[in-house]
């Protein structure tokens, strides 16, 4: 195994593209190192991207924020601007791992690890976040939802890696929230999860919403029916019940060591409902 530190995006792309064998990009390394140690992967090349200029920066852009691929969860959580605009994305990211892991783990890494249970991804999908991907053909912007292809697989091509995640601007009266279910209180992996982003108009009517579920399908699931249940409502019990039912219906989970199909379908709805209530409280300020 070779280990290289890239000084620029172009150099990283060149290294990753030139290696005929298995490659891994190292930002925080909180998934890559665990996989190396357990023998799950034996890459031929590991490229460290976190010393490239801009990788550890959060920049205001067009009313939103561009978050470098090596920004850690702890750094993200300390950014008052991001916290105010996208509290659900921040709380999803902050649920990952321990305090020590928070000093390293990144949004981009959580996304590229492509776990259906990734904690930051449902909130990013609900936020309609966009990943900027660098590769041999230059840079392209890809909606976050399109990056994971299935457990452990991404749609990134040979030589490509994510350089930043963009969280867009949003109107006043907007907020988001993320909830996961774990059998413990921390240091665990989501059995199922829900991210809800919504906007509430001046008269208390929900004018926009996106709802995403984690760990109930091979990739994070955007549920338009659930959003439709909220839009146009005042987030009354009937609307929230319809949201929960739409989430339970859309969930396509499996039985495994962490939970059953019946449990995940039901709890996905429960979490979405609870997350919508939290997001609404935040949106109303």
């Amino acid at each position, binding site marked *: 195994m070779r280990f290289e530190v890239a000084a620029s995006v172009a150099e990283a792309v060149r290294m990753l593209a030139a290696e005929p064998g298995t490659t891994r990009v190292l930002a925080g390394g909180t998934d890559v190192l665990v996989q190396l140690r357990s023998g799950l992967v034996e890459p031929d090349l590991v490229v460290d991207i976190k010393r490239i200029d801009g990788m550890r920066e959060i920049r205001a852009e067009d009313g939103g924020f561009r978050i470098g691929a090596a920004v850690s969860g702890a750094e993200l959580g300390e950014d008052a601007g991001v916290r105010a605009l996208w509290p659900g994305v921040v709380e999803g990211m902050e649920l990952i791992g321990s305090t020590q892991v928070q000093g390293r783990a990144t949004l981009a890494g959580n996304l590229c690890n492509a776990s259906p249970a990734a904690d930051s991804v449902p909130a990013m999908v609900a936020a309609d976040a966009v990943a900027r991907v660098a590769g041999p053909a230059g840079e392209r912007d890809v909606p976050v939802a399109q990056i994971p292809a299935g457990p452990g697989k991404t749609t990134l091509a040979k030589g490509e890696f994510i350089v930043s995640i963009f969280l867009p601007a949003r109107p006043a009266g907007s907020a988001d929230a993320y909830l996961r279910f774990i059998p*413990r209180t921390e240091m665990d992996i989501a059995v199922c999860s829900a991210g809800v982003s919504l906007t509430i108009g001046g008269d208390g009517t929900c004018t926009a919403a996106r709802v995403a579920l984690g760990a109930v399908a091979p990739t994070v699931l955007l549920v338009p029916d659930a959003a439709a249940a909220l839009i146009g409502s005042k987030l009354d019990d009937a609307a929230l019940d319809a949201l929960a*039912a739409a989430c339970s219906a859309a969930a396509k989970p499996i039985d495994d060591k962490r939970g059953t199909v019946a449990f995940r379908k039901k709890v996905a709805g429960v979490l979405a409902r609870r997350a919508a209530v939290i997001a609404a409280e935040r949106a109303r300020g």
Partner: protein
Amino acid sequence: MALDKQTTAKREFKVVGTRPLRPDGVDKVTGKALYGADLTAPGMLVGKILRSPHPHARIRSIDTSAAEAAPGVKAVITHADFTLPDDEDMRDILVNCMAFNKALYDGHAVAAVAAISEAAAKAALKLIKVDYEVLPHVTDVDEAMKPDAPVIERGRQAETVGEGFSENVTSYCEFGHGDIEAGFTRADHVIERSFKTEATHQGYIEPHACLATFTTDGKADLWCCTQGQYMVRRVCSAIMDMEASQLRVTPSEIGGGFGGKTTVFIEPVALMLAKKSGRPVKIVMSRSDVLRASGPTCSSSMDVRIGMTKDGRITAGHAKLRYQGGAFPCGTVEMGAMAAFAAYDLEAVRTQGWNAMTNRPKQAAYRAPGAPMAIYAVESVVDELCQHLGLDPLDVRLKNAAKAGTKASYGVTFTDIGLSACLAAAKAHPHYAAPLGPGQGRGVSCGFWFNFGGDTCVTLNVNMDGTVSVTEGNPDIGGSRASIGMMAAEELGVPFDKVRTQVVDTASLGYNEVTDGSRVTFAVGLATIKAAQAAKAEMCRRAAMIWGIDAEAVTWEDGCAKPSGPNAGDFPPMTLAEIAAVSSQTGGPIAGHHEVNADGAGVSFGVHLVDVEVDPETGATKVLRYTVFQDAGKAVHPDYVEGQMQGGAVQGIGWALNEEYIYGEDGRLQNAGFLDYRVPVASDLPMIDTVILEIPNPGHPYGVRGVGETSIVPPLAAIANAVSRAAGVRLTELPMSPPRILAALDAARPKAAAE
């Protein structure tokens, strides 16, 4: 055994009962303490073990030639390098460490290599070719007992088992007295329920690790983390066919054991690799290896039937217990059958137990082995009877509580025991009267453990500078160096900081039973007190010599030799330090020692009280408040006693709510890591409150009872009772994981589930 005269009620202790700083604390928190994996030796090789991916497979052949030829590889071994010992227990231990004709569970060791580096050893493992014939497997205890189940090994069934079972059922036992059918007739209400519990692992933080060296003339040294260096010597010398004196075993600091380190898993493998390679070999298990191939506790399937009168008197109890302890015969069910009804004074009681073999790792002891599950089932039915009859669960337990003079279901008649005192303390505690909110429930359970004594050997040396060195042979897993040093200081009348207690290797003392059965503070403490008494007698003799009076005319008081009265002579008292300073002139070094097979350990009871809240939409359980009441006989170092009470409660909370061995259809363990084998984390828990009761054990000079195990017995039922009351539905399967609770809730409200 004759019991010491009881002076404990009046005795004023000076050191015992105080809370000095733990002697091993600074080394442990600064990382200086040396654990199993911390020793290295010049020329040391890395040992790695190849494990079966199949739960059950015949091993047709093993081709090690490519691995042997690989760069850096110094030795490769398989079962062919070992000879099966005649003794059946030793044979099972060896076959568990290295599979012979069959791989018996997922993770069973089939070969091992020693190489110059971790990478070389890993690479060599991949070059070993094992030709397996995969066989049908069984991992569930009820399935394994069925007549047509795949048989793990033929010829292991005891005659007492009887007809109608597969050959996997290796033993049957029964206990009890009285006419249970007549008892059930007298009852106003009878409840019978079936229960299941999953296997749980001890979850010690330190994985098994050892370093073995072999000399060319056949002597060996083994450094390892273990609960018993003498056990390791006995087992390994038998397996390696060497004399015990030729193998020296030195225990490292131990990062948790809980019973799981009372046997060996890797030590014979390391010794054989060291012998074959001629180099020191270190083996460190990974967490995955620990979960797949070291011993968890038994899983169980149980039926319990109990009858009760309207006013809460139990008229009869009957328990049928079926345990599986992995791929080898195992006697744990017997302890469950003995303990099941121990808390009750019953006219009619019967317990029956069956052990079955399955394609799972060989079970190892885990804190009160066998008792938590059996008592969980009994205490759940008692609670349901209380609910049905509208009775207070503590009143009912007080009414039926075993006491001095009670003939226990397992045959003994109890002497002084602390059960009623624990129940009364629970009843009077503010916790029991605190209001509960919606969705919350309170659970109660009794717990019991036998406690053991056993072979023990202690030497106490009085150093010339007036300090004292205590040498003992039991690894310190629960604070024994502190408690033993405190008892030595108490008996000698010197400050605790003048005493240092060391755990030594097998060449330095006679045989000591492993650190198990909550025996160490009791038995090693007893031997230490006797050794101190011997040293005191010798110091009195030395003082008498100096004073020129009879030895009988000298007594020991407050750390000094004194003339026993005015008639004996008028001499100022001599302190221990003064006597020690001149010991060379009075006959040489001063020491005391004591060897004993300690009897009279004194059973231990506890009562746990817990409040929980169940989320009706997710099935998640939150433990809100927890109080442990336990009889310690005499708490030598109360911090450690409280720690044992809290630790047992926490491990029990894990067992009750989330910890479990999960096997797939393919017979492979699916959660061999701490991510999906869920021990509780700190934020899952409230502060565990403790109330120590002290009902002196007549079998110990200071009244000490073991406290290490009883505390894991009540949590399973206490939490199950609390959850069942909170959820409004009786839970009968452990762990009560959220999917299981939600399914039970949905089954109890069919309308809601259909939505």
